[in-house]
């Protein structure tokens, strides 16, 4: 229930295009997009987050990845990593 509320709140913000929750294996658990796009995002971002996490750890073992932001011409993809899950939000930053 709280989960629902949180996700709904995020989705309601201005500019947010989609929200995806994926688990440690890359399976989308919760999504607001269609299946094929979700699967694409899930697979690619999962790998990227793993890579980013290991990069941060390699540089400084005490450090760890807290947030990942990818800004592109069209949107901004934000990834919040956790031990087991990944929360992905795609937003159109207003300019």
């Amino acid at each position, binding site marked *: 229930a709280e989960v629902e509320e949180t996700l709904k*709140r995020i989705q309601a913000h201005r500019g947010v295009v989609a929200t995806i929750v994926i688990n440690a294996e890359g399976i989308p658990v*919760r999504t607001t997009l269609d299946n094929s796009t979700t699967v*694409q995002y899930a697979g690619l971002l999962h790998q990227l987050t793993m890579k980013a996490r290991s990069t941060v750890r390699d540089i400084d073992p005490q450090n760890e990845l807290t947030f990942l932001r990818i800004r592109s011409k069209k949107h*901004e993809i934000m990834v919040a990593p956790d031990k087991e*899950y990944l929360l992905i*939000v795609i*937003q159109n*930053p207003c300019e």
Partner: protein
Amino acid sequence: MEIIYVYTRKRSEFGRPCNFSDRPAKVSVDIPPDPSMASGFILRNPVDSYVQHTSDMSEHEVNTERVEVESRGVNHVEGGWPKDINPQEVEQTIRFRKKVEKDENYINSIVHLGSLMEHCVKQNNAINIYEEYFEEEEVAEVEDEPPSAKTINVISKLTSFFDVLLSKRDPNVTKRTATHLSWHPDTCKKLAVAYSSLEFQQNMKDMSFDSYIWDLENPNKPELVLKPSSPLVSLEYNPKDSHVLVGGCYNGQMAYWDTRKGGLPVEVSAVEVSHRDPVYGAIWLQSKTGTECFSASTDGQVLWWDIRKLSEPTETLVLDITRKGLLENALGAITLEFEPTLPTKFMVGTEQGIVIACNRKAKTPAEKITSTYSGHHGPVYALARNPFYPKIFLTVGDWTARIWSEETKESPIMWTKYHLSYLTDGCWSTVRPAVFFTTRSDGTLDVWDFLFKQNDPSLSLKVCDEPLSSLRLQDNGCIIGCGSKLGTVTLLEISSGLCTLQRNEKMLATAMFERETKREKILEARHREMRLKERARSEAQETEVEERPVESPQEVLDRARKEFFEVIEAELQRRARAETQHLHGKVKGRVGEEAAAQGEESQLPKDKEEEEEEKDAA
């Protein structure tokens, strides 16, 4: 004492089989030592001897095999599901998802992540963190990074892999010079290169005749192989139809290809009516049909062709500057120049160092040759009009590059200093009016910016160790291809400072060219005046010989020699100073000195000539 062993045989015994037998050793000669000879020798004590203790090394080279890369696509299928769940079954996936959502861990982490995420989302909405402030001011920045160029691709004629397939007889492959380059007119991703061996009578049996069209994305394998009947010396894409190319062959024929039809020429001109020497220049003309071209060669002729009918040329012109049309007096042409905006005029650079400007539409052949410009001491290897100022053109030959204006016929308006090595090719930049490029026979590419500095090139790059033979700039002005004597084509990208138009550049360049042209005109007028006065004076006083302090030829020679040696001394001293500064400039410095000495030695006859000319004019 002589030791002779004589072996005799009877003639009738010739050819008999040999019977070998064994016998014990026999002393033939025994020379006992002679102590009286010891007096002729001196005992030496101690004796110097050297010993070396190093490990034995052997030289071995290894070449890794080049990996052949191929592009392929991969199809992703949904994965990651646990074994017992079939991703296609919607029910199973839904059930799995519901199970995950009930997990406590899930709830906690999502709530936590959610708050984190909300913070960033709100941040995004509040302010654009990548906003560009002060955007307008960037334009006023002056480009002060040093000019530079970067090699982006090296295409070496794939001799080992490719040619062995074609010439199975000889595993060694003979290297040929890349004599001409032509960029594809539209895409600029393809480069057609003509390969031939320009050494006189050096054609070896196994030298292949092919020329290639390379695609820049794939420097290992040419996109298309052109197979003429004799090696191509020049090759040009048709600017109107990018599938058609015309090539001039080493034996004087012209051939044209259609890339859609493959590597064999579609048609070749008949040998009887073609040139008698290699066709050094072949350029397409502007015409409605887009099928006309013309060619020039060292046999002294310029021929016009229509490629639909290569059995005979449509027009001919003999490059005879006495305007009599005699082939014996003709000058051999090395380069050809044609500007599409001036369709009736064209220029020819000759082996004798003279540039001839011609008008195609003149009525009689005698009038076809409008003017000549002489000034080079050797063949004019390149000729190019400035794309911004059609009256100004650049010639490259012997050891200098010269800039001429069409109006001043006696001398160039600007020139570079004499280099140590021959200049082999040159071209203007298509983007900046006062920038041009030259290649040298020591493998260097020079970029000259005449507005900035006239004494030295703005950028001098050593591209390779062998002489560079051809140069071609891509239409966008940033990428240059240079071909070398051993067939390697190098592509360089020049820094943006040298290929973007600066603010007042056009104005400044126009002013500079006009200034120089005016100066030359004034000098020319003065020379003419002086010559008229001379003539008038000598006519008026025909009988009297004027007493002038004339230096005898011997004195002139001595003076010239003295000055020449002074110049060499100064140069050697400068080089000695430079040598001591460089660590491993030692060998190079010596080689450079030799080249300098050679280069300056051959300047002596020219210096003498120039001095005598000055005397005559004075």
